[in-house]
């Protein structure tokens, strides 16, 4: 008796669920790392606007922290359960595009969206638009104006080169035993950017058949980077003793810091005056161009709807203005009126430097075995910093390892 009753209930539930499934709505799953935890409500605002403009499409959000995001995404792709639309940073974009995990969006998105051409190019693979640039970020020279005043040196200008920065750093370092001149980390990302400032140094030859990371220009670039530490203008890792570079800056003990514009928020509470400037040049200006893109899975069942959402997320006015207003990264759109509100906020007063930096963008060298390259280069750079290897020796070894990785 009881069993029959159970079966009947089950049947009723199934029957009730059927019409809902048959209804004509498309649900697409969107996987993101940049929304959680601070911008989930902003994302909901964008989704609401999209769903209103596209009745019949529902966007379902899944989030993960950046550290876990790519493991989860790979697991999804591997098990045939990839989200329809997902975020990708530029370095990972190449891996996904090369492995055929992305849908070609070339014919599916309108050509009118005002993307920065450089940003749009970054997400092309084999001449096809395999993702859309959603946001960008860059790195600038942050400086403690109070320390500059105390040391009696003038503020950084857009015409500075690193020799000017070093001269100012020496004056600031002289202010006290625990006051440091500048901090510019010695790691993979800084190195390829400073290589861009040198202009002659690139990690690979144009055909990507061989690494050129041990060229004289690269060696001299690395020597410049290490000299900040050797000349005692910049604290070593042990001298920092686990204090981060941004904490050192916030404590008012650091004259200049090379770091990302994502720190604007964290530095709002600083008890001193600070501002930003574009980075000093070696032979020319060069700035990071970190881009996050939105891609559609090659295996999606709802390509049209997914592409529509990807495009809305990347280039709609709603998405752009929500991002700017909530300081949730900057849209990669060449549309100055979207950024007016952003430019008016202070500090820093010189927010225009963010857009000046975009005039000399450098994208990271990218190979399929990206993380291995980064780890290998980073390990050798620390050995050069510690004086275990000379810059030349470290980069000779790096060349050997990179050559093996691109085989």
């Amino acid at each position, binding site marked *: 008796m009881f069993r029959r009753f159970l079966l009947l209930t089950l049947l009723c539930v199934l029957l009730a669920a059927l019409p809902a499934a048959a209804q004509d709505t498309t649900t697409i799953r969107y996987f993101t790392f940049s929304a959680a935890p601070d911008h989930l409500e902003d994302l909901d605002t964008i989704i609401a606007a999209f769903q209103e403009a596209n009745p019949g499409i529902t966007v379902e959000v899944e989030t993960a922290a950046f550290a876990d995001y790519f*493991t989860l995404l*790979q*697991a999804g*792709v*591997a098990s045939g359960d990839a989200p329809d639309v997902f975020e990708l940073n530029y370095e990972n974009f190449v*891996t*996904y595009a090369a*492995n*055929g*995990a992305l849908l070609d969006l070339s014919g599916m998105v309108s050509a009118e969206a005002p993307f920065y051409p450089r940003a749009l190019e970054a997400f092309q693979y084999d001449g096809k638009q395999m993702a859309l640039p959603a946001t960008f970020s860059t790195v600038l020279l942050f400086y403690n104006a109070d320390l500059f005043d105390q040391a009696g040196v003038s503020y950084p200008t857009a015409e500075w080169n690193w020799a000017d920065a070093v001269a100012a750093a020496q004056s600031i370092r002289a202010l006290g035993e625990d006051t440091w001149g500048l901090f510019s*980390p010695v*790691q993979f990302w800084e190195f390829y950017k400073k290589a861009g400032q040198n202009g002659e140094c690139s990690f690979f030859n144009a055909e990507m058949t061989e690494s050129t990371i041990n060229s004289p220009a690269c060696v001299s670039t690395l020597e410049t980077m290490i000299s900040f530490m050797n000349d005692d203008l910049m604290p070593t*890792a*042990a*001298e920092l*003793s*686990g204090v981060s570079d941004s904490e050192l800056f916030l404590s008012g003990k650091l004259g200049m810091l090379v770091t990302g514009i994502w720190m604007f928020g964290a530095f709002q509470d600083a008890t001193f005056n600070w501002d930003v400037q574009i980075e000093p040049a070696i032979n020319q200006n060069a700035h990071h161009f970190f881009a996050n893109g939105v891609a559609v899975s090659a295996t999606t069942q709802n390509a049209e709807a997914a592409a529509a959402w990807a495009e809305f997320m990347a280039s709609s006015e709603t998405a752009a203005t929500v991002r700017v207003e909530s300081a949730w990264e900057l849209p990669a759109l060449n549309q100055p009126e979207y950024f007016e509100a952003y430019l008016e906020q202070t500090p820093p007063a010189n927010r225009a430097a963010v857009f000046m930096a975009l005039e000399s963008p450098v994208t990271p060298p990218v190979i399929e*075995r990206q*993380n*291995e390259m980064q*780890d290998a280069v*980073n*390990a050798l750079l*620390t*050995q050069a*910093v*510690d004086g275990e290897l000379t810059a030349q020796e470290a980069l000779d070894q790096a060349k050997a390892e990179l050559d093996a990785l691109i085989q």
Partner: protein
Amino acid sequence: MSQVMSWNRGIQRWKWVAVFLLPGLIGLTVFVLYPIVSSFWLAFQDWNLLQPPEFVGLSNFQELLADDDFWRALGYTLTFIVLYIPCVFVLGLALALFLNQKFPGMLMVRAATFLPVVASWVVVSLIWKWIFNPSYGLVNAGLNLIGINGPDWLFQPQTAVYAMVITSVWKDVGYIALLYLGGLQNISETYYEAARIDGANRWRCLRHITIPLLTPTMFFVAITLLINYFQMFEQVWLMPMRDSAADRQVEVIVTEVVKNAFSYSRMGYASAMSWVLFVLIFIITFVQLRLQKRWVHYEAE
């Protein structure tokens, strides 16, 4: 007739056994057996998770032989074992002999020595990172008092290894002592009585009664320590200071496996590496079992 009856009753009983075993068996199959079998299969494949696995024969193993990073990781693993196991082996015994005394408050002392064992590695590593901090840590402050300028501990590869060994000994010695304590309390008092009547002093008692009768425990300790420390992971993953030379250079086999699997997306290569680790542990344990006859005395014999 009665045979059929008992046959049926047998099935009836096994049905219930199966019902109660099932939850455990499902867990074992899904989370242990299946991964073991599939990792063996993956060891012969090239798989980046994005495209279907591709059979590559033994090439993962060939690459392993020529991989400097793997040999370096194996070298660090052996360094850890050589520094750590003798320390914890001897200190654990000394602590157990001490804890085996009977005086008031000993229960508290025993509990205190076991606290680090139950603490999580995350907590332990945070505390010891403070202690080893070169600028404001306890260790270098203490060294300063006696006029020694302490090293950068968790920033440099060499000193980081020592720091991690010290932390591991501190964390594990209570557990090893507990194992020894169990062994000590199993030794019958009559042996000591007989020895004392014969005029043996404490050292001779220790040398000729305690240690020989403790060898089965020592054997167990040696085997589990070696197996555990070939698989060491937490301290190396957690303790070196971020972005320091130690962080970028010190790797052991399991951290190398994790990096290859989850950072480099080389599932096949990581699986091959973990099978090599399994074979290494298997051989070493096998050799230990064969050598046991030479030095382990069981009381019954």
